[in-house]
């Protein structure tokens, strides 16, 4: 198996991009990534794109070919593949690209993610997202994602000493980071009071506990490590790529406050890289809701179960903390264009490891981790990147 490197990365701004169509989003991100890598279209051997539900959001399927076509690659007949795993589509797209390069089947491979969510009304987007859970056992009986994560939060708070204020601090921190990230949907800092006074969505989760509906796209270019310096002076090595699955329903889990797929994928990734949590300089976790970040920090092993709230309140996960979490602003402040999020996480780590993260730069960042969740944890992708 060959070593793999990221040689280029690009990302659109995230937000309610009324004036930008689905195809323009991914073309923009793709061009940014290819220009960053210094790669021309005819050099690309393969394309993987993470996308959850273009069929329901914009009534368009056959996304792989569409992207290849609008990227100007139709005449090159490159293999173009859509990858779908709900909100983990981007993370799995990246992993498929890593596998393609590592196997030796393909050399220069683009991994992208895109979602255009604002062409439908919010009720329709909530129902589309509910397709990431079990439609028969969860969706049909009325469970939406805020509802499911509220159950996790309720269970968690009944068993561990997590306070409402500590939970709010996750959003406060991520908005602080987002205010320092030019691609973030939300550029405003908030206070704990902002979260506590916001509308109740699904008890105990309030509006500011939830990631928003977002349009956006991100793309990265991969190459074999031994060819990476043909293209860039700052290749970022893929040290580990791991994926795990779990029951699709929340109620069938061993423990609904622990995402066992996160635990499994995290352990596999650390084993593959030969690293431990102590080696990680920063981590992008899947904070679709504030409680999800709390669970992720623990499930990946950065602290014991029940401690993440206190550590968040103490600033351990802040930009200047011991283990900065979601320096990009996370899903909460960057926004969550579901198919693009996993690639945006890689984009953030690449920027940090190259020292290009501006006001949110972690000094001396050398090893970073991404954690991308589909549904309530039925799919998890974890990657470790290093320079």
């Amino acid at each position: 198996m060959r070593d793999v490197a990221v040689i280029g990365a690009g990302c659109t701004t995230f937000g309610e991009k009324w004036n930008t169509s689905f195809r323009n989003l991914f073309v923009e991100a793709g061009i940014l990534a290819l220009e960053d890598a210094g790669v021309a279209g005819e050099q690309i051997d393969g394309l993987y794109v993470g996308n959850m539900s273009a069929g329901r959001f914009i009534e368009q399927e056959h996304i792989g070919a569409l992207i290849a076509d609008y990227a100007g690659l139709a005449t090159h007949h490159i293999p173009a593949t859509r990858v779908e795993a709900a909100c983990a589509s981007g993370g799995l797209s990246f992993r498929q690209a890593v596998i393609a390069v590592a196997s030796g089947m393909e050399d220069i491979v683009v991994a992208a993610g895109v979602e255009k969510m604002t062409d439908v009304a919010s009720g329709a987007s909530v129902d589309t997202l509910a397709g990431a859970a079990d439609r028969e056992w969860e969706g049909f009986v009325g469970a939406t994602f805020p509802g499911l994560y509220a159950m996790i939060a309720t269970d968690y708070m009944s068993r561990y000493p997590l306070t409402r204020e500590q939970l709010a601090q996750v959003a406060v921190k991520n908005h602080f980071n987002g205010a320092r990230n030019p691609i973030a949907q939300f550029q405003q800092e908030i206070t704990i009071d902002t979260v506590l006074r916001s509308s109740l969505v699904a008890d105990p989760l309030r509006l500011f506990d939830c990631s928003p509906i977002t349009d956006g796209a991100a793309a990265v270019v991969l190459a074999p490590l031994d060819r990476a310096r043909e293209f860039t002076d700052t290749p970022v090595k893929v040290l580990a790529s791991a994926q795990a699955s779990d029951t699709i329903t929340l109620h069938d889990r061993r423990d609904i406050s622990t995402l066992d797929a996160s635990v499994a994928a995290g352990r596999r990734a650390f084993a593959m890289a030969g690293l431990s949590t102590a080696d990680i300089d920063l981590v992008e976790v899947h904070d679709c809701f504030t409680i999800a970040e709390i669970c992720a920090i623990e499930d990946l092993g950065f602290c014991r179960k029940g401690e993440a709230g206190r550590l968040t309140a103490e600033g351990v996960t802040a930009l200047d903390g011991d283990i900065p979490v979601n320096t990009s602003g996370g899903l909460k402040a960057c926004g969550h264009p579901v198919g693009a999020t996993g690639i945006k996480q890689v984009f953030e780590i690449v920027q940090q490891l190259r020292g290009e993260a501006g006001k949110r730069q972690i000094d001396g960042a050398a090893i970073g981790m991404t954690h991308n969740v589909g549904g309530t944890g039925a799919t998890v992708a974890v990657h470790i990147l290093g320079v």
Partner: protein
Amino acid sequence: MVGIITYGVYIPRYRIKVEEITRVWGANADDITGGLGVFSKSVPDLDEDTATIAVEAARNALARRAIDPRAIEAVYVGSESHPYAVKPTACTVGEAIGATPVMTAADYEFACKAGTAAIQTCMGLATSGMIRYGLAIGSDVAQGAPSDALEYTAAAGGAAYVIGRDDPIALIHRTCSFTTDTPDFWRREGQDYPRHGGRFTGEPGYFKHVEGAVRLLFEQTGKSPKDYTYAVFHQPNAKFPQRVAKILGFSPEQIKPGLVVPRLGNTYSGSSMIGLAATLDVAAAGDRIFVASFGSGAGSDAFDIEVTDAIESEMFRRDAAPSVEQLLANPIYVDYAQYARHKGKIVMQK
């Protein structure tokens, strides 16, 4: 030069507080009133509709100025809630004020800006000499589905403007429009309530078009916000007109007299026209007023208006009809059940 000969407003006396609506739907009153800047909205009486409101507004306009109603040779009523799909409200109004039969008439629809489109039509007809006076009305018993965000603001009211060239109380120096095919808010034939694209009604709808029309008029006239005493913008809530005023460089003082939405709600086709009337209620000769309406679908009409000496002369009696402030004073508050009855939301035995 063409301008406003007289104007009149009608607002039903009933109000419902936004907090009463939030009580019924289990929403947080502070969130809603804080987000919209609207605290109450007008509610029509059992027998009031777009036609009766239009007639009242037209009669109030004629009460202020002794013009022969037979000289009103065009009547246009803009509304989203014409009582009939086929049968013009404008004919009812024309008959009620004695303008029939030698007149042209039609009903207009352009979401919340059909009334200002009617003003533009009358300006053209009067300027060309085809008519002496034209009556342009914006009137609505605005629709908002129960529990929809629109329900907190959808109100009832209307304003009537007589447009002509004989001693206007306010000159309309110029008007221009900025219009695109933007589906931000719509109601299909047979549907009871409009649907909308949520926040899509904001940036790509209201702000793009209002800013587009305002900047276009500034380009054409070489004027800027400092040249105006007052400004009036379409007011679906209090936040939008305040924000667009700030973006364009108008001060809170300039929009204050015309910002009627916090107590009145959004009267759809009546909205910017009632705001202009409230401004004319306090304006003096020489005051310059900027107006920009907005209609979903979408477009904005901008107007450069200058108040003349006629507003203070004996030919115009501002006090002969109630001011907007008087119409807003002494409301009768209803609860949600009475409101539902007044709005015909309760289905009676069939």
